[in-house]
Each structure stands twice: as C-alpha cells, then as structure tokens.
C-alpha cells in the first residue's frame, strides 16, 4: 500500500512538472522576449496560453505537499528542516510569480506593468531553480533522516545545483514546445518558428544538463547512479529518445503530437528518478516508503482519495484544457491593458 501511495506521489509530481513546469517556463521566455516592441507577440501568446490554466496547474504543487506530509511525515519533516532555505525562497517565488502575473494584467501604467512583469518573470526563473536544488539534495542523499536544522551544503552540492539548472531548462523546454503548438493552432507561422528555435535550444541545454547531472551523480551518489543505469535504464532511454524526437520533429517543422512527446520525456525523467530511488525515500538513510511514519489506514485513505481525484478532477481538467484548446477562454475579456517587458530589459533598451 505504501508503494501505491509512493506511485501516487510520483504521479502527482509528474503532473506538476509537465503542467506547472510549463507555466514557469512561460515566465522564462517572457523574461527573455526582449524589448517592448520585439517581445510583443511572444509575450501576448504566453499570456494568452497561461492565464486560464496556471492556477489549476499550480494546485498540483499543493497536492504534492499534502500527499508527501500525510503519507511520509518523517521524511517530510526532515526535508523541510534541512532544505528550509531553498524552500522559503521557492515559496517567496511562488507568491511573486502569481501576484505579479495577476497584477500585470490589470494595471494600466507601463512602468507599473514592468515592475509586476519583472516580478512574474524573475520568480518564474528562481522558483523552479530552488525546487530543483531540493530534489537534487534528496537524490544525492544529503538529507539526514532526523534532520532538525537547515543545511546549506545539502542543496549547494554540484549535483543539487545542476538539478536546479536542469529544472529551469526543462521548464523552458516544455513551455517552448507547448507554445509551438499554441502558435500553430493560431496559424501564426512566425511565432511557431520563434518558439521552435527556443524549444530546440531548451532541448539541447536540458539534455546537456541531464548528462552532466548523471555524470556528477556517479560520484555523489554511486548507488543511485548504478540503479539509474540499471533498472531505470529503460526510462532514461525513453527520456532521451523523446528529447531527440522532439528535436527532429521541430527541425522538420512538424507540430502534431510534439507536446505529448515532450511531456512524456519529462515524465520519463521523473519516473526514472523514482524507480532508481525505490524503495528509499531519503537515499543514504534508512527512511523508505514503508517506515516514514504513516499507518496503513492513512495509505488506504490516500489511495481512495486519489481514485476520487482521478474521477472528479480528470474530467474537469479535460474540460478546462479542451475549452482552452478551442479558444473558448479569452483573457482578453479582462485585459484592456496588456503586459510588457520586465524592468531590466527596458533599462537596457534605453
């Protein structure tokens, strides 16, 4: 039963990665879109694509946290203690991202829009980075089982930092691929090519960082490395193949199905990590899925909860996404005043 809950947690993390991650990536491309004039069209597309869905996607994070602390309270407390600093920073980033995004839409003064936009864009970069370092800290076995104090070294190891950068790159990659599809659906060839280039760059960077992380892992956590190249190898291969496939499809100018393939690739990375770590919850300690502190009844309740969630949330998400795909949800309704570039870029522009 604990295994089932572990799988549920991993599935929820995957969904946050491929849905919420792309929203962070949107912020990254917003940040890099250039001056007011040049960045106009891409920013508009990003805004249009993220607005109706980001809050629903964001809920996966809350759901992940809840499942984590309910099913594995000891491990949760240890992570929260040891990795307190990056988690605080990620929480701060979440506030600035969401508030900045919502405010930017409604304010009408360009300078205020820039401040709000900058908050949105920069925190879209920082939040996944700090989340990545926390996952990196867990994977390298830097979280002691009974951690009761924050540790700086846990999340600043080369592997953890690489994981942080990988998270940012993966978010950017996913977002760019999704935006290629969004541009194609709107028949905008120019933006399609624009985001295709960025998706390719994202694919290369994310791929390189994955390989670097893997190499680093061979020294920082050899046991995990052995299992990643052992029983988790099929998933690692799937991740690589998906990445290459997206790259090739983009080169060929094809857009059909690339969003699914890209999401599958990221999902394979998450599951590769999960399978390699199984049944350990905090590598390098005795904490496993079964002894992290919850009784059988809690697992049963969580499995039941997840079944209800799939039945209730699944169709709701399907409705939301299908309305979004059919462009029935228009942020333009409420946005007479649109977003603009972040502060920094404006200063450079002058």
């Amino acid at each position, binding site marked *: 039963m604990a295994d089932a809950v572990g799988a549920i947690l991993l599935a929820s993390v995957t969904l946050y990665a491929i849905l919420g991650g792309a929203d962070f990536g949107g912020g990254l491309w917003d940040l890099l879109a250039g001056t007011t004039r040049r960045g106009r069209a891409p920013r508009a597309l990003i805004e249009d694509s993220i607005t109706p869905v980001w809050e629903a996607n964001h809920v996966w994070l809350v759901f992940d946290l809840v499942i984590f*602390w309910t099913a594995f309270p000891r491990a949760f407390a240890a992570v*929260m203690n040891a990795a307190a600093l990056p988690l605080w920073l990620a*929480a701060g980033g979440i*506030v600035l991202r969401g508030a900045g995004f919502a405010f930017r839409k409604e304010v009408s003064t360009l300078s205020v829009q820039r401040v709000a936009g900058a908050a949105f864009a920069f925190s879209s970069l920082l939040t996944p980075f700090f989340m990545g370092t926390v996952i990196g800290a867990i994977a390298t076995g830097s979280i002691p089982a009974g951690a009761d104090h924050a540790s700086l070294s846990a999340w600043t190891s080369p592997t953890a930092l690489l994981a942080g950068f990988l998270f940012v790159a993966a978010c950017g990659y996913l977002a760019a691929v999704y935006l290629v599809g969004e541009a194609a659906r709107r028949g905008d060839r120019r933006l399609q090519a624009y985001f295709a280039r960025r998706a390719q760059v994202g694919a290369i960077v994310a791929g390189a960082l994955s390989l670097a992380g893997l190499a680093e892992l061979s020294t920082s956590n050899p046991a995990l490395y052995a299992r990643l190249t052992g029983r988790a190898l099929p998933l690692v291969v799937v991740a690589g193949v998906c990445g290459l496939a997206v790259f090739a499809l983009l080169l060929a100018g094809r857009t059909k199905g690339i969003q699914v393939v890209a999401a599958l690739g990221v999902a394979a990375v998450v599951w590769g990590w999960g399978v390699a770590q199984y049944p350990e919850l905090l590598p390098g300690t005795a904490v496993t899925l079964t002894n992290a502190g919850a009784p059988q009844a809690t697992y049963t309740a969580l499995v039941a*909860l997840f079944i209800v969630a799939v039945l209730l949330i699944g169709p709701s998400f399907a409705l939301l996404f299908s309305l979004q795909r059919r462009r029935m*949800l228009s942020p333009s309704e409420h946005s007479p005043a649109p977003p603009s570039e972040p502060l920094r870029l404006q200063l450079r522009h002058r």
Partner: protein
Amino acid sequence: MRPSAMALLAAAPWSGDVVPARAQMATTLGFHIILACLGIALPTIVLLAEFIGLRRHDETALRLARRWSQAMGVLVAVGAVTGTVLSFEMGLLWPGLMRRYGAVLGLPFGIEGLFFFLEAIFAGIYLWGWRRLPGWAHWWSGVPIAVSGIFGAMSVIAVNSWMNQPGGFTERNGRIMSVNLWQVFFNHAALYEMPHMILAAYMVSGFLVAGVYAAGILRGRRDRYHYSGFALGFVPAAALTPFQIFVGDTAARAIAHDQPVKFASMEYVARTSRQVPEWLGGVYVNGRIYGGVKIPYLDSVLVGFGPGTRVIGWDSVPPADRPPVVWLLHLCFDVMVGLGFVLLLAGLWAAWAWWRHRRLPRQRLFWLLGAVSGLAAIVAMECGWVVTEVGRQPWVVYRLLSTTQAATANGGIVTSLSLIIVVYAVLGTATIAILRLLARRWRRGEATEAAVPYGPPLSVDQPAGPLDSS
C-alpha cells in the same frame, strides 16, 4: 487590512524561540484568511448577480457580475499563492507537528486539495469564459466554484478543529497506529467551527461588497447600479448574521465544556465558581480588571441558562498550561461579539425600513454603517481567530503536543518574518490599489466589457494591434 500589525501585537507578550514562528504564522494566516473568505463566498455573490441578470434580463446585474468576476480574478490569484505559502509553512515552521501528526491531519488537507482543484479549474473556465460561453452554460461553470468553496472550507476547518479537539486516531510511543478519517474530519469542534467560519466568510464577502457601493452612495452616486451592488452583498450577509450569532453562542457554550481554560480566558473566570459575572471590556492585569462593565451572574446564565451554573476557571490548570495574555483573548472575543451585534442591528434597520417603507433607510448613518460593515466583519473574523488560536496555547494539538515542541529549531525566522511582513504589506497594498484602479476604470466607462482585442504593449511608437503580427 493590517493583519501583520495585529499579529505582532498578538505575539509581543511571549518570549522564547517560538514567538517569531507564531508571529509569522499569524501574519500569513491572518492575511490569507481574508482572501480565503472571498474565495469561499464571493463566487456565490457573483453567481447570484449573474443569475438575476440572466433571469430578469437585468443589464445592471450582469454588469456587476462581470466586473466582480474581474476583481475575483485578482483575488483568486493572490489567495492561491498566499495559501500555498501556508502549505510550505506547515512544514517549514511546524516540522514537529507534521512529523508526529502529519498522517492524521493531512487527510482533511488532502480532501481540501480536491476541492481546491475544482475551484481553480472552474475559476479558469468561469473567469475567462465570459465572452465565448453562452449565458446559462457560463453560469453553471461557476457553480462548482461556489460549492467547492464551501467543502474546501469545511476540510481546512476540519484540521483546525481537530487541533482543538483531537481524536479519531490511536498512538503508541509517538507513532500513529490507526486513523479513522470520519472521526478526524467530523471531530467534536468541527460541528461548530465549520458553520461559524463558513458563515463568517459569507458575512465578510457580502459586507465588503456592500461597503464598496455604500461608500459610492455616500459620495452621491445614487443610481440603480450602486443600489443593486449594495443589495446583492448586503442582503445575504445581513440575512445570515442572526444565524451566525446563534452558531457563535452555541460554540462558546461548547468551548466552555471542551476547552474550559480557553473559555475562562475569554470571560475572565479566574476561579472555578458559580454565579460568575460577565465582563464587558476591561483589561485584566495581575488579578485585577480595569475599566470593564460587570454584569452579575450573566456568564453563568450564558453557559448553563441559570445563575447557579458552575464555570471552570483557569485555576483548574497550572499556570504553564494557561493561554498567555488573557486580556487580549477577552478583548478580541468582546470585539467579535460586539461587531456581530452591530452588523445585526444594521440588518434589522434595513429590514425595518423595507417593511415600513419598501425602501432602504435614507439616514446617512445607515450608509456610513454600510460602508464600514465589510471592515467590521473582517475585524470580527480576525478577532475570532485570535481567540481560537491564542486560546489553545500553549498547545498546538490540544493537550497532546505543545507549540514549542512543534516549532522549527531553525534560526532566521525573525528574518523571514521581517521579509514576509514587507512582501505582504506590498501585496496587500497592491491588491487594494488594483481593485481601486479597476473601479476607477469602470467609472470612467472604459469599455472593459466591449470586445477589446488582446493588445500587447502600447509602446510609444506602436499602437496596440491584433494578436497576429505575421
């Protein structure tokens, strides 16, 4: 909206490591709870307006619904992120609580997660579907938001009430052995905390909406638009107020039984006795009460319907197990009850005027009262939370786990607290500023409802154009 100042005040009299963590939790929760109220109840009020608009082909009501849902878009976003901060803080500030009871109190949170999903998904559809979804389909897309707001609130309150009346689990050597979800969710305190908070959310949202339009009417904007806006908020909130007072009275009696020391602090009952007087106001310092009004026997009467009722005092437990600063608890309780009655009077006044003259009162005082009713409801609600939370001290889980044991051992909370106060002050100011900006824009008649094509940045050299730049 100054929850941070309130939190500091509430935290000041304690000493020890746990103070900054408590102050931070109070600040973030005190801030989020206002948005949570709006998240729970505002959708219902918006749906009410849209319903009337669709049913009676009432353009004014429809315009109000559209504008309110634009404000709701901002409020939902800020509420979603400040709520997430609280999820992080459960672990970052209270790892001891989560390590020991995460497997129990996490379950209602999991159920809350489901409703949070439904809320966010259908908010995405409702808020952005105004233009393209046909009238009644759009209205129905908002119904799940209102429904899940209520169930989500029940789930979160289930956790808080469980902390006040823990049960539904067995524990051996600090390990949870079994959990009964039903008993955890519907613990004894849930039966009064849930309706109390949900009614509070409806009162805060309704009176806040009413207050905006009452202020407009005071400034001479006496048109149908403003009267409709006022009534759509005021009527539901005022109609629920008597029920809230009944639920609150029941809750206080239950607390006298379930958490006698909390009740004793609320009512200045130092010694267990009969014929206990009721103190209105007053500051308790070193065994003396300064400046209060004493009503003989009333406390005993309120607790057990007779002056002979025995009320348990805080002398029943050693000083270390009593809540700190009883005067704060008592005054917060009095302010909450007092404001509840003021809001009740405002509702009765309106009802009387409607009964006699078929119109709302004309007196300026009524509209002044209406204008501040939202603020009053917020203050009452925050005071209620101070009573609940400070009154449970020194326990985080009543009589099972002390707050000190639950708190993080990490330093630097003073730093994060300072940062949070700054960030939340900016966030609160910006939220209010943006709502005012929207109102100004609506007043100037900028056609937000008209089909404005999504116009990217209005730069100096380039006017807004259509999306496709190719």
